[in-house]
């Protein structure tokens, strides 16, 4: 029973994928996706409760294992998966109505999204870093066709870039894992790539080999997490993918890859002391923030704007991780959830704006407040939440990251990072206000309606739910506090 509950976040979406392949996408199966995501969330919460009460759980002969960090990441996957799933039927119906998709496309989309959820759940549940690697690489495979779903030139190109850059990056991570296994073998612990075994025997790992391995692992998983310098795939893939997929990729997949970096960091801290990986993370973080700031200032495409903002937030996570310490780690985890909620809502909103106006250019979307008040409200509040205004949780987590950074010896990097964050916030506000305000375009000009004007109730509810969740988290972490604290202690190596 217990092992079934633990494995449910992998098994339920896997079954969902099989179901979609067998029965296709139709009115009766459109809700299977939401049901499966809801079950993942429920299983994640149950697992988290057990972990808080009785400690780490494991199953499948020790292949999957959930400690507080895994349980927290499962909740992130379930929550954001649910938001994206609730908005998916309306999105697919609008695409089919506009002739950009068929029910076959919808079937494939749904089956791939379900496999996507299963692979992400496996990644965070893997006890062994090798299994984690396989799962992360599998996410690339299942999302490749989702990115290229539109079959336009831009979409196919984005998919190619995505697969080539991410696979090459993740191949470097594999080399890192091989070297880490070699170091572990010479340390004589017999742990192989089992994460807790590696942490326990970390001080016996050969420092020179481990250093080499850690560099490769941070670059490799950092590529998949969208950290500079190998971030070039991200704006293309996240802007070309269908909206619910962009929501999942930006909201969850990036953090799942970053979760791997966090696990590596614990081993590196114990084997090499905190300074080595801190330097790597600070470089990656500042480079990512710089890339995001410089390309956001003159950005003309709102989906790419959101994608660059994801690079910014990954940079912030890396800065927080560089600070280390339980407080910083709690803030990092909260930021993962808060950013995921808000960014998925924004990508769903952006997808809807694209369906309504037919253009992804910022300059061609105007007066959204008049034409689509609810949608405009969601996008407006979403951007305010994203730049870290209270009461939304991004405010609390950014504050936590900044405080930890100034306290823990990465003050200068944090100062530089905050300047860039302010520049990015200004750019986001100015671009969004141009879309929301302004005078209404002529009815037949660019931006003439191509989709039914009313926002479907369920999609609206999903987006508002995400924003409310983020606001509630910002006021109090509530029942999550215990889990967050446990997880932060694990990641800080305390």
């Amino acid at each position, binding site marked *: 029973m217990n092992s079934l509950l633990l494995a449910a976040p992998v098994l339920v979406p896997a079954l969902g994928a099989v179901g979609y392949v067998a029965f296709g996408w139709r009115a009766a199966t459109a809700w299977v996706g939401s049901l499966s995501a809801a079950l993942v969330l429920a299983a994640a919460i149950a697992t988290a409760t057990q972990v808080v009460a009785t400690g780490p759980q494991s199953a499948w002969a020790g292949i999957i294992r959930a400690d507080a960090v895994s349980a927290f990441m499962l909740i992130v996957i379930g929550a954001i998966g649910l938001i994206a799933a609730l908005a998916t039927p309306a999105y697919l119906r609008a695409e089919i109505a506009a002739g950009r998709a068929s029910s076959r496309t919808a079937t494939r989309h749904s089956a791939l999204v379900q496999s996507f959820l299963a692979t992400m759940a496996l990644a965070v549940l893997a006890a062994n870093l090798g299994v984690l690697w396989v799962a992360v690489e599998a996410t690339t495979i299942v999302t490749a066709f989702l990115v290229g779903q539109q079959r336009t030139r831009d979409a*196919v190109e984005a998919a190619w870039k995505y697969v080539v850059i991410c696979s090459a990056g993740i191949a470097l991570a594999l080399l890192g894992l*091989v070297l880490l296994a070699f170091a572990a073998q010479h340390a004589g612990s017999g742990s192989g790539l089992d994460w807790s075994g590696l942490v326990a025997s970390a001080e016996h790992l050969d420092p020179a080999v481990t250093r080499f391995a850690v560099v490769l692992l941070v670059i490799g998983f950092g590529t998949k997490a969208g950290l500079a310098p190998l971030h070039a795939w991200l704006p293309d893939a996240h802007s070309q993918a269908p909206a619910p997929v962009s929501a999942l990729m930006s909201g969850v997949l990036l953090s799942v890859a970053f979760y791997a970096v966090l696990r590596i960091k614990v081993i590196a801290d114990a084997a090499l002391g905190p300074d080595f990986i801190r330097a790597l993370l600070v470089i990656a973080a500042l480079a990512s923030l710089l890339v995001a700031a410089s390309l956001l200032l003159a950005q003309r495409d709102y989906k790419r704007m959101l994608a660059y903002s994801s690079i910014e937030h990954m940079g912030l996570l890396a800065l927080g991780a560089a600070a280390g310490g339980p407080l910083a780690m709690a803030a990092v985890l909260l930021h993962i959830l808060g950013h995921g909620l808000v960014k998925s809502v924004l990508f769903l909103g952006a997808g809807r704006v694209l369906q309504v106006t037919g253009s992804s250019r910022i300059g061609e979307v105007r007066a959204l407040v008049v034409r689509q008040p609810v949608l405009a409200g969601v996008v407006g509040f979403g951007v305010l939440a994203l730049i870290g205004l209270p009461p939304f949780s991004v405010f609390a987590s950014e504050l936590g990251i900044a405080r930890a950074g100034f306290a823990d010896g990465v003050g200068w990097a944090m100062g530089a990072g905050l300047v860039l964050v302010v520049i990015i916030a200004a750019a986001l506000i100015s671009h969004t206000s141009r879309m929301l305000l302004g005078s209404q375009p002529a009815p037949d000009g660019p931006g003439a309606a191509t989709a039914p004007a009313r926002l479907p109730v369920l999609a609206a509810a999903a987006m508002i739910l995400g924003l409310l969740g983020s606001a509630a988290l910002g006021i109090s972490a509530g029942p999550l506090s215990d889990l967050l604290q446990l997880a932060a202690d694990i990641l800080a190596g305390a």
Partner: protein
Amino acid sequence: MGVRVSDALYVQLLNLAAGGLLLTAVLALWRRELSVIIRVFAVQGLALAGLVGVLAAREGSAELVAVAVGVLVVRVGVLPWLLRRALATSGADRRETRPVVNVASSLLAAAALTLLAYAVSQPLVRLSPEPAIHAVPVALAVVLIGFFVLVTRRRALSQLVGFLLMDNGITAVGFLTGAGIGLIVEVGVALDVVLVVLVLQVLTGRMRETFGATDLDDLRELRD
């Protein structure tokens, strides 16, 4: 079980296989005819399977023999077959026309990368005196050359070969260090690689459908 191979023969065979790996990587960098590059890649797979076979004979391990057969099937059979299929559908454009770096400079770069591989793998060599570990720099050089092919080639198919060269190199490092990353993980890795190649093969097909060629120079639409 099995007959233990004598030390001198073992070292010779090991070096032969490792030399084959590096030589094929350099050949893949040198030649431009895509069909030749694919054949070179298959030969490299053979060298890799041979390497695993030598290690299997040395350790008398039945499991490693099975793995060597698996490597042979995937890297000499399945992957080159997939590549040839991708090439067959690609019509007339069968040559790497204008690589970003010309051949002479590429070969110089390969030499530099090999030196770099020797430099960075010193910590490993220091950790263990085994002859297998002494071959690790060669495998690392293959990884680096693969990465170089990946970033300097314009044809989609050549980039794919670059990725596969990297993967061969990494697999070789794995076997040479003898670091057991676990059977589940190894099967997972092999499966992932085959799937990645399948995905990329389908994508090259779609690229041709949507814009004619698979020259990545045409991939310029998504710049900021």
